[in-house]
């Protein structure tokens, strides 16, 4: 275990940036989001969660993977390789770190999504424990422990005031640590004790959170039963059908494939898509989901029933972003509670 003094931050950002692409929570116009670091950016590691989840670092909002050119009847296809360097994603909260594993479950199962795999393998992820969970956090509902290193992260870090405690957990994490070891010190006995104190404090805070009692297990019954519940009519009425919740969500991963045409050449890209959109399932000969109720139900059934059936865990990490961002204050907590018979 190492210790990194906060006064060394500018130095380590610079140093990491030499060897890797560096993504950090960066503040712009009062808003904090993960972005590639460049000299002079305001890094904000105090803000608990970024406005949008960091999933776009591992799964970009849009990426071109094919170029094409046609000449009469001839067609040329050329796959586009991403040119990204190895990168470090620094300051990921536990909920977001877990969300990466949830997306892995889909993209890294056969047939493996090579674009994603490549990008994922290039990343070293440094998590940062949540010293101050916020009132709309409910990660504990999904057995996520914000005081600990989440499975899958390469380095776990804790904020100890004027320094962070730095614990490599994987080989990649070791490599990163060794590279910049000269900027760090070994953690002392006292640091270790402080860590335990901090972790206990976080645990206590999490217990006290207003949404701590949210429990997805209240949703019981067969798939079809839940699907046919009357609750959907009621809950979906206020849904505007925008995709804000899906795009800020760390676990939503549906995508669209589109072509960009420019004369006889162009490119094909995939981009985020949302099951909330009316044309999401539209086919030439019809649409199986014509109402917002059906689309709304799809999103939550996916997170709370379908995904668990297929992968053994809920597709929600309790980050609370949808609670903050839904224009009409509809969110997964309301859905869980209502499906569980509350209200």
């Amino acid at each position, binding site marked *: 275990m190492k210790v990194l003094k906060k006064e060394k931050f500018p130095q380590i950002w610079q140093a990491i940036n030499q060897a890797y692409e560096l993504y950090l929570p960066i503040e712009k116009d009062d808003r904090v989001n993960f972005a590639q670091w460049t000299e002079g950016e305001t890094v904000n590691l105090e803000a608990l969660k970024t406005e949008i989840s960091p999933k776009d670092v591992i799964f970009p909002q849009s990426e071109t993977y*094919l170029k094409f050119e046609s000449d009469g009847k001839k067609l040329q*296809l050329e796959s586009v390789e991403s040119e990204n360097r190895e990168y470090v994603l620094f300051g990921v909260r536990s909920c977001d770190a877990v969300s990466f594993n949830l997306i892995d479950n889909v993209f890294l199962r056969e047939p493996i999504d090579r674009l994603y795999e490549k990008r994922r393998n290039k990343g070293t992820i440094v998590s940062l424990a949540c010293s101050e969970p916020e009132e709309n956090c409910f990660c504990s509902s999904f057995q996520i422990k914000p005081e600990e290193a989440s499975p899958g992260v390469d380095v776990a870090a804790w904020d100890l005031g004027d320094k962070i405690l730095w614990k490599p957990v994987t080989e990649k994490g070791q490599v990163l640590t060794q590279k910049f070891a000269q900027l760090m010190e070994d953690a002392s006995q006292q640091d270790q004790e402080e860590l335990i104190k901090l972790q206990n404090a976080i645990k206590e805070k999490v217990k006290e959170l207003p949404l701590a009692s949210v429990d997805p297990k209240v949703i019981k019954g067969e798939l079809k039963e839940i699907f046919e519940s009357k609750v959907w009519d009621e809950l979906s009425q206020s849904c505007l059908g925008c995709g804000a919740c899906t795009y800020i969500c760390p676990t939503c991963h549906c*995508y669209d494939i589109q072509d960009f045409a420019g004369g006889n050449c162009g490119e094909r890209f995939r981009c985020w898509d949302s099951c909330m959109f009316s044309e*999401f399932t539209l086919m030439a000969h019809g649409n199986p989901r014509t109402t917002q109720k059906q689309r709304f139900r*799809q999103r939550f059934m996916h997170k709370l029933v379908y995904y668990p059936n297929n992968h053994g865990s809920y597709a929600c990490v309790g980050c609370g972003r949808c609670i903050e961002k839904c224009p009409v204050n509809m969110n997964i907590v309301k859905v869980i509670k209502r499906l569980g018979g509350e209200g």
Partner: protein
Amino acid sequence: MSCSCHGHVDPLVPKIAVIEHIRKDTPDVTTFRVVNPAGGKSFTSLPGQCAMISVPPIGEAMFSITSSPTEENFLELSIKKCGIVTEYLHGLEVGSEIGIRGPYGNNFPVNDELKGKDLLFIAGGIGLAPLRSVINYIMDKRDDYGKVDIVYGARTPDDLVHKEDIFNNWPNRLATNVFLTVDRECEGWDGHVGFVPQYIKELGLDTNKVVLICGPPIMIKFVLQGLEEIGFKKEQIYTTFELRMKCGVGKCGRCNIGDKYVCKDGPVFRLDEIQRLPDEY
């Protein structure tokens, strides 16, 4: 150039295929025969599987492969003109290059549950396309299967696809019956007139068979009702689905019926499997 033969290339990247032959089946259905530019099949597949066809810059669409896997030299796809991709495809000529990737999805259990059984195929309109790959597969391995009954209907005689097969090839095979029907009386048509579900009841078939169905949703709905009335069980019936697909590999998230993805867990489902799924297709 693309090189989809290597494992590290993304499954979303298509490879080139050339249209070798075009046959207009009906005013709006055309059968395309595609091959590798250097000759040969783009890939091997099983009966009921699908291929994603790319026509940049219009886009991609999933089609069932209508040729039998036993066909060694090419893939065939029967495509009905109904959207922007299919419209573009219908404008292509022999020699045009397109993108293709696949095969996708599961298949009819030709080597398991169907083996040695009497089979009943029920198709409506373009729904014959996926079943044809099974029928031709079975015709090529005729001894492995029992009696074959094919009930096929379309709106008009003009809308019947694969005419060579339904009128000549299949009826002349051993223990194979083809029952054709059209929705309305039509000049020059002396065959059966009426809807498929009704026709099935009229035929008075025995129920010791496996049934394979594909057609418009409304036809499937009534056929299933009819079959159950006659005494067929859900475990005896297979059908194949089609929903909006983008990736074909179970990731883009739009072709699901409940927790099943049509592109990956389907398109072929046994009726009792569908029963636990929501009615959203």
